[in-house]
């Protein structure tokens, strides 16, 4: 078993580190600071931490006002509440004016688990990517999360970074350097490409290893910058491997799969499959059980690869 680590904890620790270096970093939360780990920052910098209570709309527009006055606000809550609960505030207070607000949300996707439907965030990426102005990042592990947060702090403009609740396997080592807007090639391969984000990157690697045993050679891309998406990497993957599978802990429409499909359809049409949540809400259960129930495992990716390669091979 690979080593596991918490992305939320990486976030909290990175915030403290950033706060020590830059007095303009301020942090907001909506009564979830122990879950989002912003309490680590609050403990060290109480005067720069603003708990807004259970009022996400207010928090988002306050963050905008802070950014308009030269601060670098990080605002956090669960992914199901931002953007879902304050979409219009994100649109008018932050995205349209292009203000320097960093939304780092935790508890993305369905690996929230037992809390169930009300707390599963299955549409957040679709919502946030629909707003012109946001840079959207879905890190694949704790190391990439820390890197992405540093890059967001150093880059002007609105960011949305989606983290998950559980500890997940590390797919990188400490020497990894996140590069904004660039897909990361995790495995080279010629038969098909798996493009994954977040918790699905580790699953994609596992699937690629299993498929290798069967003689299917998969390229694996981590598309951690979901927006602006690395169009060139997608076109190249389509041209090089002739088949693409996307994998995301999100609804099938509006997220990674839709965005990749649009680029593939326009520039380099190839067979595609989509490993994602179908048009439904998930229920309570353990994270691993839910991933299995809603079709988000390495096995699901393997089946999808079999499907696309069959279609691809039927052309020749």
């Amino acid at each position, binding site marked *: 078993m690979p080593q596991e680590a918490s992305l939320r904890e990486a976030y909290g620790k990175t915030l403290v580190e950033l706060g020590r270096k830059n007095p303009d970093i301020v942090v907001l939360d909506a009564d979830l600071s122990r879950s989002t780990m912003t309490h680590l920052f609050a403990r060290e910098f109480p005067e720069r931490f603003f708990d807004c209570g259970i009022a996400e709309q207010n928090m988002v527009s306050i963050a905008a006002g802070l950014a308009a*006055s030269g601060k670098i606000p990080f605002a956090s809550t669960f992914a199901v509440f931002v953007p879902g609960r304050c979409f219009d505030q994100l649109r008018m207070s932050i995205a349209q004016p292009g203000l320097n607000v960093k939304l780092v949300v935790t508890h993305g996707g369905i690996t929230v688990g037992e809390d169930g439907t009300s707390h599963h965030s299955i549409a957040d990426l679709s919502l946030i990517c629909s707003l012109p102005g946001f840079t959207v990042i879905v890190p694949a592990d704790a190391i990439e999360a820390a890197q992405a947060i540093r890059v967001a702090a150093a880059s002007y403009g609105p960011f949305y970074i989606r983290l998950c609740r559980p500890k997940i396997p590390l797919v990188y080592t400490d020497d990894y350097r996140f590069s904004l807007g660039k897909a990361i090639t995790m495995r080279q391969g010629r038969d098909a490409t798996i493009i994954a984000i977040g918790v699905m990157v580790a699953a994609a690697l596992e699937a690629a290893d299993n498929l290798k045993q069967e003689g299917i050679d998969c390229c694996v891309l981590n598309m951690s910058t979901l927006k602006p998406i690395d169009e060139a990497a997608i076109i190249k993957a389509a041209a090089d491997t002739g088949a693409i599978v996307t994998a995301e802990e999100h609804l099938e429409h509006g997220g990674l799969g839709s965005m990749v499909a649009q680029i593939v359809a326009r520039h380099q049409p190839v067979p595609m499959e989509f490993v994602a949540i179908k048009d439904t809400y998930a229920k309570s259960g353990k994270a691993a059980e839910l991933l299995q129930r809603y079709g988000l495992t390495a096995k699901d990716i393997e089946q999808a690869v079999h499907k696309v390669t069959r279609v691809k091979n039927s052309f020749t």
Partner: protein
Amino acid sequence: MPDSGDGLKANVNAAVEARSLSVKEMGAVAKRLRRHIISMTGKAGSGHPGGSLSAVEIVTTLYFGLLRHNPKDPRWSDRDRFILSKGHTAPLLYAALAECGYFPLEKLSTLRQLDSYLQGHTDRTVTPGVEMSAGSLGQGLSFAIGVALAGRLSSQEYRVYVLLGDGECDEGQVWEAAMAAAHFKLGNLVAIVDNNGQQIDGWNRDVMNLDPFNKKWQAFGWHVIEVDGHNLPQLIDAFNQAKLVKRQPAVIIAHTIKGKGVSFMENNPDFHGKAPTAAEVEIAMKELE
């Protein structure tokens, strides 16, 4: 108010001083703003004259008597901030900014035209002097809290003024913000409510009753001041009084008349979001001579 004793006395002196200097001139400015609002919306053929006219004296007092600002350096970091939360009354703000010299008065006639930087609702990315992209109601007070918190953190002296509509206070976010501003003890924040009593569908009391309005703000922890929102000396006094409130936000509930200054627009909700026709512009301009 913790320090009302000596403070209030100073307040009266300051108000007298400001009044003796400028009330008459401010009255003339107010009339010019009204004429701009009518001609701009008339030329554009759309826009929101009613709520622009009701807040003329409020905005005049701020820009021509109170705010420390620099039209040559709109983003001067120590400027007092005026945040227009009721973004549909952009014509009023544009008129005031042009009169201050943020941009040429001739630009006012481009309101709402393609490629004009005078957008239908305020847009901070294009118009010099505009602090916030507003128009989707209810966000300005929260935004103002962020600006006020930043000023306090940086030990900057600037004060933050935010203008809300009374109808806007139907929005739940306004009350989230009202709670937060008091919680954060923002003595550098002043909200003004243009209390003209009307919203698009009619009188507030029929559409969504806000009463008891002043008690709501009090209950949320605000220092409440009520004035006749068309009376310049009263407004000056109110703003000076608000300056003396420490560690608590202040709200000025300005009682106004929607469409103020133009007989057929006064208290007429039809002119919330409808421009005057050419004939109506002519009549209005005569009334505003």
